[in-house]
């Protein structure tokens, strides 16, 4: 099988699975599960063949030509897509296995697994895309799969609202993305990434800040950056395995992947703006996480914050590369791309682990998600506790675990480029340790504070095995030896950064953030406490954080009070103004003839219409012959 055929088979396997389930097995959950799981295994196998047995390649085919517009679609397999493909295939498979156990008591399992397959199709296509349009097509399709899975519980109004919000907010980002693509086409004469890179390589002056920023809009939407982050916490209404796969490990990371893909067309100005949006998001979400009580929502804000780190990493590394005058090429891994993709990879392991761990908790406590109603889970769910602890330590940057190294690379880049950003990101790292310690002590230590937590129990092996696999990744994904040869480019490039200028400052700062953050968390959030420290001591601050700095409220206000009212006013104007006074006025007052005709036609009689028609024909005849 040629590489192209292999890629096509990989791409269409999950689509076939989704179609089979959708068309034939909607009412046979057992068969649907089997098909979907088989597809996930096949994806893993085919992806391995692509990763380990296939040279990097690119292939394009002309898809649509109209006038001067030529759209070519195709595949691009390189270290970046190989790494993301590995993450998608591995986490996807683990989530499938976990879901077999987690969803076993649910209705509509066939729909769940069908949508999961649809997501795998979309995400694979996104990963392998070689051009902006193919990226955009699958970008929209992952959005669709995400919509379908968030509103899996579609009787719940909150789930319906959340899915709608996710789709529309993403669409706002895509609005910018699409303008960016259009500009890119007219600027570079192609939407194929390789062509764009060649064009820029030949003449760097064609780079325009606007294009980079507009394409970044897409990433802002999908990767939950300020101010379009509002959909991601709400998306936790979806089943927890979905939160792990889509809203933590893969889809939300697609924005980072997109940035890395288009890194060649970023100007320094664009990168500076991207840098501050990423840094701001990392800080903002870290603070807001302190004001949340729901297990999954805290993790969602944590994801937003970590995505902010990745965005900042990309911008920092690219800026450092620009300063040192590195040459532009699609294949070259700049420090920014390496650091961002490396953090994406380690984050995929520990965040998927944390989400699946919280799924295990929800499963064991009959959906008790409020951390202040949990407690004492360490004894009742030892395996979940152990793996969750590993995930937490990896996330908060405990030395020698995965997150420590990937965060360190980012901090070093920040140190090299800008002191303010360096300190902001240190604060972000401190907040990460602080809010995760709060979550960990409150949920796992002390005594059970609710019926659900009292009767907590481990799920079966289907739930535990994926946790164990991800825990291994969270422990060791920070080391280059952990990765197979074919995937080692990115981690090695990122780890290479650790020897750069400022490495000791970053290492000391990062370790200090971890130590101080978790120690302070231990001191302030006492195990077993049923109340929140901030809430009792600083209620005003807590409320602001709980209300997420009122950003969501501002959106709600805009939608209800501005947008909907504008729509209603325009509707009124349209009905009364244009249709009523305008048209009837002109017709009635201006021309008696037409109003007469109107009344005549009002009869609805067949003859009238036919006479009108004949009259028209005769009129035509008269005019034409008159001229002749």
């Amino acid at each position, binding site marked *: 099988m040629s590489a192209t055929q292999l890629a096509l088979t990989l791409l269409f396997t999950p689509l076939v699975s989704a179609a089979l389930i*959708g068309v034939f097995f*909607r009412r046979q959950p057992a068969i649907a599960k089997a098909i979907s799981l088989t597809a996930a295994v096949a994806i893993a196998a085919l992806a391995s063949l692509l990763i380990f047995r296939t040279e990097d390649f690119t292939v394009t085919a*002309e*898809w*649509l*030509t*109209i*006038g*001067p*517009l030529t*759209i070519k679609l195709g595949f691009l397999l390189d270290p970046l897509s190989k790494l993301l493909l590995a993450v998608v295939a591995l986490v996807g498979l683990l989530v499938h296995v976990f879901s077999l156990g987690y969803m076993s008591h649910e209705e509509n399992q066939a729909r769940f697994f069908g949508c999961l397959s649809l997501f795998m199709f979309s995400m694979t296509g996104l990963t392998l895309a070689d051009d902006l*349009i193919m990226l*955009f*097509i*699958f970008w*929209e*399709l992952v959005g*669709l799969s995400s919509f379908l899975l968030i*509103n899996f519980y*579609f*009787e*719940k*109004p909150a789930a*319906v609202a959340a899915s*709608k919000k996710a789709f*529309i907010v993403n*669409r*706002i980002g895509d*609005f910018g993305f*699409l*303008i960016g693509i*259009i*500009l890119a086409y*007219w600027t570079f004469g192609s939407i194929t990434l390789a062509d764009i890179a060649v064009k820029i390589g030949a003449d760097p002056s064609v780079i325009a800040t606007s294009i980079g920023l507009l394409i970044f809009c897409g990433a802002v939407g999908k990767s939950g950056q300020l101010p379009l982050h509002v959909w991601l916490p709400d998306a936790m209404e979806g089943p927890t395995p979905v939160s792990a796969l889509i809203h933590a490990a893969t889809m939300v990371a697609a924005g980072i992947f997109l940035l890395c893909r288009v890194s060649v067309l970023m100007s320094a100005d664009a990168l500076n703006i991207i840098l501050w949006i990423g840094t701001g998001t990392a800080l903002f979400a870290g603070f807001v996480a302190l004001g949340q009580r729901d297990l999954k929502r805290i993790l969602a804000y944590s994801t937003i914050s970590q995505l902010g780190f990745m965005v900042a990493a990309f911008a920092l590394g690219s800026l450092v590369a620009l300063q040192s005058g590195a040459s532009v090429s699609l294949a070259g891994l700049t420090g920014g791309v390496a650091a961002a993709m490396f953090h994406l990879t380690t984050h995929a392991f520990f965040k998927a682990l944390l989400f699946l761990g919280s799924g295990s908790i929800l499963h064991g406590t009959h959906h008790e998600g409020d951390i202040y109603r949990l407690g004492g889970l360490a004894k009742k769910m030892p395996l979940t506790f152990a793996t969750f602890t590993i995930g937490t330590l990896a996330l908060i940057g405990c030395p020698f675990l995965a997150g420590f190294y990937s965060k360190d690379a980012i901090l070093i880049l920040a140190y090299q480029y800008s002191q303010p950003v360096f300190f902001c990101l240190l604060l972000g790292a401190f907040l990460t340790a602080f809010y995760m310690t709060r979550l960990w002590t409150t949920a796992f230590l002390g005594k059970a504070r609710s019926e659900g937590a009292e009767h907590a129990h481990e799920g079966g092996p289907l739930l535990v095995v994926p946790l164990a696999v991800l825990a291994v990744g969270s422990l060791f994904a920070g080391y280059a030896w952990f990765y197979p040869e074919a995937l080692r480019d990115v981690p090695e490039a990122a780890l290479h950064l650790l020897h750069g200028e400022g490495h000791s400052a970053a290492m000391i700062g990062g370790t200090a953030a971890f130590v101080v953050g978790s120690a302070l968390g231990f001191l302030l959030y006492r195990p077993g406490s049923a109340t929140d420290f901030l809430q009792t001591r600083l209620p005003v601050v807590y409320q602001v954080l709980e209300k997420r700095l009122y950003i969501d409220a501002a959106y709600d206000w805009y939608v209800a009070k501005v*947008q*909907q009212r*504008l*729509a*209603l006013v*325009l*509707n009124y104007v*349209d009905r009364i103004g*244009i*249709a009523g006074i305008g*048209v009837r006025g002109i*017709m009635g007052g201006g021309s008696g003839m*037409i109003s007469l005709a*109107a009344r005549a*036609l*009002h009869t*609805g009689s*067949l003859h009238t*219409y*036919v006479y*009108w*028609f004949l009259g*028209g024909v005769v009129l035509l005849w008269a005019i*034409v*012959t008159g001229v*002749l």
Partner: protein
Amino acid sequence: MIFPFDPLLLAIVAPLAAALLLIAPLPERVVKAIAALGFLVPAVLGFLTWWHYGANLDAGTGYAFRTVYDTGLRDALGISLHLGLNGISMPMFLMSGVVGLAAGLYALQTKAERLRFYLGLLLVMQGGLMGVFASVDIFFFYFFHEFALIATFLMVGLWGGKDRSYAAMNMTIYLTLGAMLSLLGFILIYIKSGAESFDLIVLRHEIAQQGLSGVAQNYAFGLLMIGLGILVSLFPFHTWAPLGYGAAPSSVSMLHAGVLKKFGLYGLVQIAVPLLPAGSAAWAPALAWLALGNIVILGLVAMAQRDLKQMVGYGSVMHVGYGFLGVACLNALGAGGVVLFMVAHGLSVSLLFLLTTSIYHRTGTFDMDDMGGLVKKAPVLAAFFLTAILASIGLPGPGLLNFWGELTIFMATYEHFGWLVVPALLGVVISAIYGLRAMGKVFYGQPSAAFLKHQESNVVTDLRWNERIPALLLILTLVGFGVWPRTLSEPLNKTLGEVYPASAAAVQK
């Protein structure tokens, strides 16, 4: 394949012959079979002409399947029944056949009173539609449109729903006015060209040789833009449309909003812009601004609708703004986008109207506040409706063809008008908002009190097969051409290359 008959003439005559046959007092089963055949033939021929288009293409004229029938008016008036397809009309001819078949199949299962008469008029409409896109002669192009239009008026007036007589009257006045203005425009071209022929090929040739005076072009394009604009519900001449679609029986809404309305956009792309380069250049900025009125203002109005059918109507009217925007770019890129967009819009809008009526049959109302939770009872209907909504908002996947059309139009808009593309793209967000809101209100959440009450006395079933088949026909056609648009875009691009550079040169002259 060389056909042993003229496929275009057969596609026009078959539905009309079926309509004539229905006059005979036949048992209902036979009536339905004849009607089904009458709808099937144009669709099959649509696919056949698409498949064999390249092999039958005549390089000299740029048309395939060309035949001229003398009507006895050629010498006196320069009118003859000249049929043929080029790259612009072939996709439209195909789409028209497919939507016609879907609308016909859907009509067969309705419980309309005087079904025989209803089917007959629908067949007349279908014959007219096939004629519109098969005509090379402008007179017959116009004539077939009127033919279909009169059937439309009658059906809205006789079988319409709420406010049908007012809607029918409103529609008739507007559309008659629009048709008259565009007729004046066509006649002006005819007179001023000196070609003494309504034949588009002759006119094109003649005008390329002689050129038209700037004044004549301005008048003619103005008449055509306003006249055809009214027919396609260009802002602010759109008010007949949501009202009319709200009242019209579903098959009529499908055929009118999906196909017949495209007469105007098609006329602009195929005839007005290439023949009147100077006139269209003068009017294009105004047209672009009015198109933005469709996209932004009517998009917001669609958001305010509580009535599902009105919302679909406004949504359809909103989206034709993209078509006008593409026309206003005056080049092959914009025009190509418009043709792809028209095919996609025709298929997706007719699908939406079809499913909207199916929803109505289950909820007993169009008021979205009185629905909710329908997905539990009708999951297939929900899946189809979601597909239709996503297609109409141009989401790649179900709406890949819509996406290609819109993307091409946006590309052309940026090239021609620069940043005007930004407000135009707002439609991408606006349509997602009203589309998903409708999805949520109708299908998701808990059933409303009114819907629960309705369920007490009515059994709510999922989509039946006689509703699924027409819907599937539309979905599969839409997705198929979306995934593989080249079979439409290659002939289209070839024709555009022949028709549009000439006009570009003329502008410079």
